[in-house]
């Protein structure tokens, strides 16, 4: 028996970055808001206490705070003619669970995409011709320009207190910053983090090579900061427990440190935890959401009526919920028609490891999730792609996020896998190894998509999401190019021995690569090729808005959260300034 709750103005699915920002701003506007979160409530003092947080086994290896596959997972296949198998243990990516979402366990690298990324299709055709685009690509321009999104990037960075050095301030190139970035309207809210010894070698080597290194933008704060919501943060201590951990130090920007203390002051907001939304309910004609159905930890089913439904879960689960609810036409790779599940993309990872030998103390444990120097000379279209034959690019970085030894105990190539020689190599190499890594874009293709699996089900008997994905020749070419550039830089830094990290092909669900899973419910100007209009509003059900990286038409050579946050404020602005007045589709065809 389903119990029916009193109607709310707004029902939000998932209380991570975008859900908490939406909740705060709409509660502030006077609306009655409920957020329904399938994981537990978590906060700094109780859950990430300094006496329990720095525990590699518990959080990074056993993955205590992540979504457990038993609760929900996906199936994966590389190609259309394969049978997908369930991801029984998360490896390649780690979806979040609980209040704070991915914003609780992330590293904090807070990038803006480059202006060319937003019109990559038009730009590539203009510069290289249409024949340069890869076979079977679904590359799409974004439905807004960088300039249109810039004020919202700025707002998100100020809420997080991002530490960085502007490189292009209102058109003026600034020393020490990224000269290739899009024009910024303001400085970063806090100065860049101090860089470590390895970054000083990287910066010198790259500069000597004619490249343009800079400290990467960081949501591990360089100094104390009070954000526009009145929440105070503390300076980062480089403890090396960022990614996959909660921050015990109030130094890593997260919903917990930046939004929830302000949000919880609004009595017109409530959060329901350990309650999983199973469906967005639609009116009989399917054109209006009437609210959501959720199941709590006792398996009691509830109906929560609402005027507006905001789908703010992790990217995969936004797409799955739309498919299960019948919002938008599911994508069919045979016909190329349909939009929900279309344009799934991921990230390219490749790089080089430098072994420096005696006399080097990189002290990798003195790290932070966003500590690092980066360069954009090989990102987006900042270089001539003509001779290389691929579309897209990568940010190249020298970083120490951590030196946690279960996962990080590098050995030089040729070392045995165990025994006395292995032990000696681990002893000698830990402190004298550094790496240069590339994080590259992934384009969208006709055969990279998400749909519902025909075989495997979740504990409630609903089909799991199925991913069909592999790296195409375009991405493989790009990864090889970036691996070579990374090797050149680490050699110039003084490495005595260099080993390379190539892109793993076919795509594999192990080991960890990145949790930058994008697409599946993309924004666009054409309802034939996008599930959402330019404001993140469903074309089919206009009182449903969807946030998150699921809305990226393809992925760029950066971490997604900066753009996820900017799009959230962009959507929020459209809801507040337009939708609440008209309650109609914000884009009329």
């Amino acid at each position, binding site marked *: 028996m389903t119990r029916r709750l009193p109607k709310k103005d707004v029902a939000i699915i998932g209380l991570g970055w975008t859900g908490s920002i939406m909740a705060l701003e709409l509660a502030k506007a006077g609306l009655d808001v409920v957020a329904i979160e399938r994981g537990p409530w978590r906060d700094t003092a109780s859950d990430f206490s300094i006496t329990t947080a720095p525990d590699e*086994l518990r959080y990074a290896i056993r993955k205590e705070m992540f979504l457990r596959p038993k609760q929900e997972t996906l199936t994966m296949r590389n190609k259309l003619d394969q049978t997908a198998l369930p*991801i029984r243990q998360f490896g390649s990516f780690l979806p979040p669970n609980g209040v704070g979402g991915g914003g609780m366990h992330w590293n904090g690298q807070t990038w803006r995409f480059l202006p060319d990324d937003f019109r990559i299709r038009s730009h590539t055709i203009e510069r290289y011709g249409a024949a340069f685009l890869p076979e079977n690509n679904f590359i799409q321009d974004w439905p807004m320009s960088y300039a249109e999104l810039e004020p919202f990037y700025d707002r998100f960075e100020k809420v997080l207190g991002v530490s960085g050095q502007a490189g292009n301030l209102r058109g003026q190139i600034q020393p020490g910053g990224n000269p290739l970035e899009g024009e910024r309207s303001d400085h970063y809210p806090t100065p860049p983090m*101090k860089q470590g010894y390895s970054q000083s070698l990287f910066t010198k080597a790259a500069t000597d090579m004619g490249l343009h290194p800079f400290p990467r933008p960081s949501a591990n704060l360089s100094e104390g900061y009070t954000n526009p919501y009145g929440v105070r943060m503390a300076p980062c201590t480089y403890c090396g427990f960022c990614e996959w951990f909660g921050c015990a130090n109030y130094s890593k920007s997260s919903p917990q440190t930046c939004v929830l203390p302000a949000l919880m002051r609004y009595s017109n907001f409530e959060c329901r935890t350990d309650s999983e939304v199973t469906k967005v309910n639609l009116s009989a004609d399917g054109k209006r959401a009437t609210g959501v159905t959720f199941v709590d930890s006792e398996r009691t089913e509830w109906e929560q009526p609402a005027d507006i439904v905001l789908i703010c879960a992790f990217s995969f689960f936004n797409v799955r919920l739309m498919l299960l609810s019948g919002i938008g036409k599911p994508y069919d790779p045979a016909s190329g028609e349909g939009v929900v599940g279309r344009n799934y993309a991921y990230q390219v990872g490749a790089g080089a490891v430098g072994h420096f030998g005696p006399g080097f103390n990189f002290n990798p444990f003195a790290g932070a999730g966003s500590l690092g120097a980066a360069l954009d000379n090989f990102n987006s279209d900042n270089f001539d792609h003509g001779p290389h034959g691929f579309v897209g690019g990568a940010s190249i970085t020298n970083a120490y996020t951590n030196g946690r030894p279960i996962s990080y105990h590098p050995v030089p190539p040729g070392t045995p896998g165990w025994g006395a020689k292995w032990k000696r190599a681990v002893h000698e190499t830990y402190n004298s190894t550094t790496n240069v890594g590339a994080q590259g874009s992934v384009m969208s293709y006709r055969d990279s998509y998400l749909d519902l699996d025909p075989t495997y089900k979740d504990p409630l008997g609903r089909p799991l999401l199925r991913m069909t994905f592999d790296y195409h020749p375009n991405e493989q070419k790009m990864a090889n190019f970036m691996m070579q550039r990374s090797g050149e830089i680490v050699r110039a830094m003084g490495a005595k021995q260099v080993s390379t990290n190539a892109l793993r092909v076919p795509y594999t669900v192990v080991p960890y690569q990145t949790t930058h899973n994008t697409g599946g419910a993309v924004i666009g100007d054409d309802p034939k090729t996008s599930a959402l209009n330019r404001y993140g509003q469903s074309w089919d059900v206009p009182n449903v808005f969807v946030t998150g990286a699921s809305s990226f038409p393809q992925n760029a050579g950066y971490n997604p959260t900066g753009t996820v946050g900017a799009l959230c404020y962009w959507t929020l602005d459209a809801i507040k300034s337009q939708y609440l007045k008209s309650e109609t589709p914000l884009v009329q065809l």
Partner: protein
Amino acid sequence: MENPTRRQLLATTAAIGTAALAGTPTQARVISGALPWSPNESYPPTLVRPGPWQFFTAEEAAVVEAIADRLIPADELGAGGKDAGCAVFIDRQLMGPYGSNEWLYMEPPFVPDAAANFGIQSPVAPARRYRDGLAALAAHTRQAFSGRLFHQLDAEDQDRVLTGLEKGDIKIPDGKAFFNQVQSNVVEGYFADPIYGGNKDMCGWKLVGFPGVRYDYRDVIDNPNKPYTLPPVSLMGRSTKAAAR
């Protein structure tokens, strides 16, 4: 109290006999009006105490200790896998959710011979992997080494057996998977916080120079390329002897 802490809820759950796990609250709550707060709310891990084997038989434990000592031999750089407590670590891990794959997706159909890029596709959980692997290894060494078990072999023969398992030359069922399982768990035990029973006296951290959970390295950033000289600290503090009390 309107909002009992998760710990109190866990206590309730445990009292009615359901397997409750530290730090895994699952009770739905409605939170409104203020950040939830309860005094002393915290979710520490369970401290592993020395004592009788919980999962292994004495014979199994002797074999696992011997394997750990060949994977990470004792030498002038520090303790070997046995004295580091790797077998104690593994014994306790196998009794928890890890040993039974409790948090993983374990619904059929299984396709155990799937390509490696599909990850784990076998229904065999770590506890079962150890039980079956150790039994098969015992049968193999008894047959190949005139009735002896692995821990009764000399170091050269032990290394030969391990290499045979690793390369798949010794044909016991899932021998390679068993080797990989033990190797990854021994490394975990050698480097995990000593609170879990391995990494005795922080030997693993001393081997590489990891200072543990000191939590503030601003001085390291300010002094580039200098050796770090302070001894490591674990979640229990400086000395792991506290665990024995």
